[in-house]
């Protein structure tokens, strides 16, 4: 069973959990967003991005 090392795993840009496998890559505001679930994508769109997204983009980041 192939496994990624923890320092190779992406994090959900909404909740921050490490994603060992099967990350979801969604699109928001024309940019890819990595999330762990549909629920987190909704939280990203309706909570995280309105609050932190523009500031993060201005700083050149974007991770949750």
């Amino acid at each position, binding site marked *: *069973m192939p*496994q990624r090392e*923890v*320092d190779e*795993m992406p*994090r959900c840009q*909404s*909740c*921050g*959990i*490490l994603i*060992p*496998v*099967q990350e979801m890559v969604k699109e928001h505001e024309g940019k890819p967003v990595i999330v762990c679930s549909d*629920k*987190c994508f909704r*939280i990203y769109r309706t*909570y*995280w991005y309105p609050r*932190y997204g523009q500031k993060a983009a201005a700083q050149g980041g974007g*991770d*949750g």
Partner: protein
Amino acid sequence: MVQDTSAKRSVADLNIDDPVQLEVTRNYLIGTCEEMGAAMLRTSYSTMFNEARDFSCVVFDAAGQMIAQGDFCPAHIGAIVHTVEWAIKEVGPENMHPGDVILHNDPYRGGCHMPEFMTLKPCFYKGDVVAYAANIAHMTDIGGMVPAAFGDTRNIFQEGLRLPPIKIYKDDEPVEDIFAIITSNVRTPKVSRGDLMAMVGSTYLAERRIVDLIDRLGIDRFNLLSEQIKDVSEVMMRQAIARMPDGAYAAEGIIEDDGVLPDTSYRFAAEVNVRGDEIVVDYTGSDPQSAGAINQSFGTTASATYATIFHMIPDDIPWNHGAYRPIAIVAPPGTVVNVNYPGSCVGGNSDTYPNTMDVLFAAFSQMSDRSQACDGGTSGLLGIYGTNIDTGEPFVLLHIEGMGCGGRIDADGNDAMVTKNGNCLNSPCEVIEVRYPVRIEEYSVIPESTGPGAHRGGFGVRRIWRCLAPITISAHVNRTWFRPWGLKGGEPAGNAALLFKPADSEEWLSAKDLYDRISAGKFSNVELGEGDLIMLCTPGGGGYGAPHERAAELVRQDVADELIDAQAAEQTYGVVLDDAGVIDEDATRLAREEMAHAAT
């Protein structure tokens, strides 16, 4: 089959066709979890399991979603929803076969901290996975630089053996290579193997019970009832949240040190956002992760979040995956609430966790009276390593101590209780003395530890140990200078202390002063000799409400019980007693009027 319940407003909307069968099935599954626990008590080797009950047993459906939990440890049960989900995804259901048991303790993979080993058994029925049984339990020793793991570790490698999801059983046979790796890297190989076998055995028991249930119901009916179990909880949870006032409620707290950097505390920030029928708890603003072991993994932070919210909700909601659905978490990576690899986090699940809950309680107190004042908030963890005098066998004891709980709107805080994330028992003095080369010379309530209030905080305890043989001691104790806060006019409680008196000394000193450690509460591998003494005092709980509003009769009873003296009754609570211990009503009224006036 996953139902979308977001549009459902009441349980009636779910069209449950047989609510009686639903309840019977739900309680059967809970009973299965409790029976797993009973098996653990009777078959495990370590006092961590058969005395402290530091384990949790849970049943999941075929989708890896929790459908039943027993009355075990909140710290486990909150994290396990993530631990199991990711173990299933990483191993892959297609790679699971009858007779498999998976083992996993990786905190970065949805786990809480490394001592919590999870055994996960896919339960098969006629060739298909129909459920999962999980047992997550605190292994006393996991190797590493510190016996029992808790001290001043600086990275995950120092903590001990880290295991991603791997199979320790295949075709109903132990994978002896895996057992050999584990037993070769721990200080108590016989105890550790025995404990692991007990965990595995409990999952086999659960599989038998689940198969029996499906034999009676049929697989389609079982699957439908599993969905209904979750959906009912989700609807009830959303209804309860919707009754909370919308808004953002923020609070913060600290962990006083990490055992690595001198005089450095760490800030935990939390904002509870109530948005209709869901809650988003945002930990943005928390400090970057520490150099020591006080960090929380994501699993731990999520668990603390769920546990606090469940405390705030009426307790007739069945706790399963459905109840977790309306809760979302934002935990910035690389902070104290979501440690990055290879940061240490063993203390996060034990002592930082109750601190996080206290911060959330403080946030919730802004919109609900159901909250509570700050707990003692430390497990007073002592890891003791040595050799049994009688048998010559190595032993590791992880001692968990009780502390005072915070006062509440309707009750005093509980006394001498293991922290709210643990729900564990400490070991009786008699058991400790029989199994380990120590004598308990004092075990008492600390009267001055309580935080005064209309409902006072619970009392912390003092325990004095005498070493009967050389031992090595490590510790992870919080609140040695931070005092648990009161709420709504309640006063702070007394703090913790961990002191030593060598056999040839008359003075009690801390590990900082006596053994040149950075922290008085977090250190590793102090060598003690025969006759040396250890004193652990745990914090009390903060008070709730102004002390002068405490019922005078309760104050009189506290004096009669020798929990406080008459002077404290008058000076702190404004209750004046005569020489016979009877309340002087007039003097009390005057004293309390003065106190109320001074408080405005």
